[in-house]
Each structure stands twice: as C-alpha cells, then as structure tokens.
C-alpha cells in the first residue's frame, strides 16, 4: 500500500527570546500513513499534534527533518494542496454567508468554477447531510451544523487526504455518530484520514491505527489490535455482598461495572482465571460469564502518557 503522508526525523523548535527559552515542540517524529487508512493522532494538550498538522499544511516550517505528501517534498505546491482537505479545530465561518456560499468560496480557491463547482457543492452538502439548510445564513446554524459545513469545505475538492482537528468536539451523541459514519464512508472510498482528537472513544471506534504523542515525542504507534492488549479478563457474577467484594478487592479483583444485582468484576493482570474463579466460588458468588478483557484506548492513553510522564520526572 502506498504511503501518503511520511515524516522523517521531523523536528520543530519554537525559538524564545533566549536560547534556554526555546521550546522543542516536536522531536524526531517519524510517521508513515498509508493510503486508505484512518490514523488517530492522540496526545494531551501541548504535545505537538497541532504543530505536526500545521507543518503538513505548510502553515509553519520544520526546524529540521523531512515531510513527504503523496511522495512529494514540495508540500506547499498547488498539486499537493489540491489533494488535501483540512478541518481546523474551532474555525470561524462568517455569519453573513449562507452555507452554500461558504462552500462556493472555498471551491473557487481550488479553482473550481461553473458546473463543476455547483456539482461539488451539491455533492458535499449531500454527504454532510446539510441539504435542508444550504440556503440558510450561518448565524442560524447550530454548532453541529457549523461543524458539518466545516467538514464539507474540507471535502469540496474531493481530496485524497483529509486532516481533521477535533472533528467531533462539542457535538451531541447523534451528531458524533453521524460524523463518524461519514468518516468511515470516506475511508471506504479510499481516502486517507488523519484525525487529531481528545475524544478517545470516537477515535477507537473508527481508527485503523493510532499514534500517541507526548511532549513532542511519538510514544507509541500501531494498530488497535497491536496496542490494546488482552492481559486482563472480566467475570460477571450476582449475589455478592459488600464484605465479599472488599475481600476480593484486596486480592486484585475489583468491581468495574454494576447493573442492578449483576456485577462485572475486573481481574488484574497477573491472576490466572482459575485462581480468580476459585476466589469467587469461595465467596459464594453466582458465576454468569468469564471473558478476556481488552484494554480501552483511554486506558492505553493513560498508561502510555503516565509512563512517559514518570520517566520525565525521574530524569529531572
């Protein structure tokens, strides 16, 4: 599969007034995103996600290292930019324009005119489900509708690559699901998506691969199957008393979820399933199921970032 976005030893230093005030925002970043993939780009605030995106879009310039988009080093060329759609986080779109006019404006910037422009505007408005509000002024749009128009402007040139910064932030669950479905559809059409987000559940649901960045260093990168381990398992039981639960907790078996009388117990890494079942039997619990438990992306994120933070503290 051909690589669409590639960075090699990419560094970015924001220069301060003095040398010791310099901020090394990105350190030797090596990314490789193949065509047709949804790549979740994660990291806490200030970790360097937006810096990376801005460099991919030539809004800022690398201190050292190399970026290749669609194999080209000239990433600010019109040819490369024509293949990229970008949705910035919290972008403003002028209130005095109608949804359709915004898309016409951005379409014209791609060189679209006449029938081609109209055809693309109709197509993207349809994709983001905004046909009913295309002639309404933006001041009458909800946050979700604005986000959809933002996504539509990113899609107006039918780009091969989509770079989305927090595409679902601030949206209600239904709007999130709809945006997620649109993104999955785009992936199915063969487009490559780079999604930077704090919404870990959303990213987990749609990403093929993720990378976690912390203080400018890529801490881990891989497919969700590679990264989300199954080192723990869970047991569903009923009939547990509080005293029994506290005794189990001392032995590393904690309550993860509770629905009425039914409890989902999480068995920490290091216990064998036989040992855990024996402990439950000793407490006279009614066993319903035993299943391997896959780590969530949120847990992976906390684990990776926590480890990196601890390492930094130790070094300091």
């Amino acid at each position: 599969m051909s690589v669409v976005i590639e960075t090699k030893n990419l560094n970015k230093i924001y220069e301060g007034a003095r040398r010791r005030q310099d901020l090394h925002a990105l350190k030797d970043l090596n990314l490789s995103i193949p065509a047709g993939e949804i790549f979740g780009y994660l990291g806490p605030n200030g970790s360097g996600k937006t810096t990376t995106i801005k460099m991919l879009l030539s809004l800022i310039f690398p201190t050292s290292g190399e970026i290749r988009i669609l194999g080209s080093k000239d990433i600010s060329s019109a040819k490369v930019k024509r293949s990229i759609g970008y949705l910035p986080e919290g972008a403003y779109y002028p209130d005095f324009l109608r949804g359709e006019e915004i898309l016409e404006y951005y379409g014209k910037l791609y060189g679209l005119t006449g029938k081609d422009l109209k055809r693309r505007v109709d197509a993207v408005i349809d994709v983001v489900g905004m046909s009913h509000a295309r002639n309404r002024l933006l001041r009458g749009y909800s946050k979700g509708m604005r986000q959809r128009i933002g996504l539509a402007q990113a899609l107006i040139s039918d780009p091969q690559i989509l770079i989305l910064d927090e595409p679902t932030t601030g949206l209600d669950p239904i709007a999130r699901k709809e945006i997620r479905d649109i993104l999955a559809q785009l992936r199915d059409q063969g487009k490559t998506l780079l999604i930077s987000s704090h919404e870990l559940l959303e990213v987990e649901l749609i990403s093929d691969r993720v990378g976690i960045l912390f203080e400018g260093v890529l801490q881990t990168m891989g497919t969700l199957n590679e990264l989300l381990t199954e080192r723990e398992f869970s047991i569903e039981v009923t009939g547990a008393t509080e005293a029994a639960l506290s005794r189990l907790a001392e032995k590393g078996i904690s309550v993860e979820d509770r629905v009425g009388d039914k409890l989902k117990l999480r068995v920490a890494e290091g216990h064998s399933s036989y040992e855990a079942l024996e402990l439950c039997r000793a407490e006279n619990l009614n066993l319903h199921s035993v299943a391997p438990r896959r780590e969530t992306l949120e847990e992976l994120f906390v684990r990776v970032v926590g480890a990196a933070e601890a390492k930094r503290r130790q070094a300091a």
Partner: protein
Amino acid sequence: MKAVVDYIRGPWCIAIYTWREGMRKKTLVGFLILSLLVIFGSNFMSSFLDPSSETDMELKLIKDICVTAIAIFGMLITVFISASVVPAEMDNKVIYTVLSKPVRRGQYLLGKFLGVQLIILINLALMGSLFFLALYARQHVLPTLLLWSIFLTYFSFLIVSAFTFAVSCASTSSVLPTIAGLFIYLTGTLTEYLNDVFTRSGQSGAFIDKLVGYMAWCLYNVLPNLARYDLKTQIVDRAVNDPPTDALIPWLVLMALVYALSGFLMAYIIFRRKEL
C-alpha cells in the same frame, strides 16, 4: 493569458470575500455614517453664518467641512481596515482554511490587499458622491475639481494602506498596525517640512547642521509626501469647476503606485515565511 487568469482567480475571490466581510465591520460602518452625517450636516451648519458676511462664505464653509470630513474619516477607515484584515483572520483561524487550499501566500496577500482597496474605494465613492451632490445642488455646475481631489485622495490612502498592511502582516493583533498607520499618515503629511529643514540648514556652516540638512533631504526624497495629494485649499478657495493647478497628477499617481508596490512587497517579505 490563461496562467494570469488562473493566478488572479484565487486573489479576486479572496478580495470579494474581504470586501463583503469588511463592509459589515461595525467600526467601519460607524465611521462611514459619521462622515456622511458631517457632510450632510455641513449644509445645516452654514445656515448659522451671519447673512451679511461675504456671499461665498457659506459655500467655503461647506467645502471646508466636507473635504476635511472625507480626509479624516476616509483615513480612519483606511487605517482601520488595512490594519485589521490579516490579523483578524489569524485570530479566528480562517487563514488556516484558506492557506491549506492551493493558494500561495502571495496570492492570499494580493487578495486581501485588493479587498481593502475595494472597501476604501467604495467608502470614498459614497462620501464623495454626497459631497458632489451637495455642491451640484447649490451651484448647478459640475464640480470637476472635487472629482480630481477625490481621485488624488484615494492615491494618498493607497500609500498609507500599503504600509499599514505591511505592518499588520508582522503583527498578531490590529492595535500596533493601527497606531503605525496613523503614524505613517502623520509622517506623510509632514514630509513637506523636511524640505524646509533642508533649505534652512547649512547656514551656520557647522557639520551637525549640514548633517541634519542632508538627512532631511534624504528623508524628503524617500518618504511619501501626502500633502501633494491634498487639493483642499484649491477646492475651498476656487470655483468648483476649475482644473487643478500645481499638481502633476500622472506623476503623483505613479509615485503612489511605486509606494504601494513597495509596501506590498514589504508585506510579502514579512509574510512569506511567517509562522501561523
């Protein structure tokens, strides 16, 4: 030809968008309404003059107020809009969506600058039209001198606009460029005094005196002289359909275009590697 059309299509689209957005800015609309009120109100104010005073006194007062209002409010609009279009787009992140499209930074700046010029021209046309109508209604002659005055006033605004725009490209807020724009305007209107400094220098024969004179001469020849674009005295004192005198209009236009190009190039040099 096709390459030129392709190159200009993006900037023109940005210019129209800038104009549409700019004409909705409350500060700008406020300045425009105020200037139109002053021009309109000058007719009313002239009625307070002593009826026994000179016959053309009333007309002189109207012309004086109107020309001053156009110069002041036009300049405020010029400085305000030139100082704010680029920093405002950096602030609200619209610039990210535009520059991530196949639009070069030079094209983006050209579009913004053309948009600013559209705003200035339209505001000047509105103010000038009202003044034109006021004069025509009183004298029933075509005030050609006024048309020349407005024409030259635009070119003085173009110079101020270009340099203010250049400063705005180096800034992240519109405050500093606005102050810089007003400073550029004041400097431009006072350039004529540098010639006085030069002609009076060297009389004592002291080195410092000569040096000051030389510096004044250099600055006089480098800085734009906005006073040359001002036909106010002629408009107030002479008949409205007289031709302008003491003004080499083609030369002034050429100089304004050279200064505007210099200002735009400065803006481009600042902006081409600016981190956004």
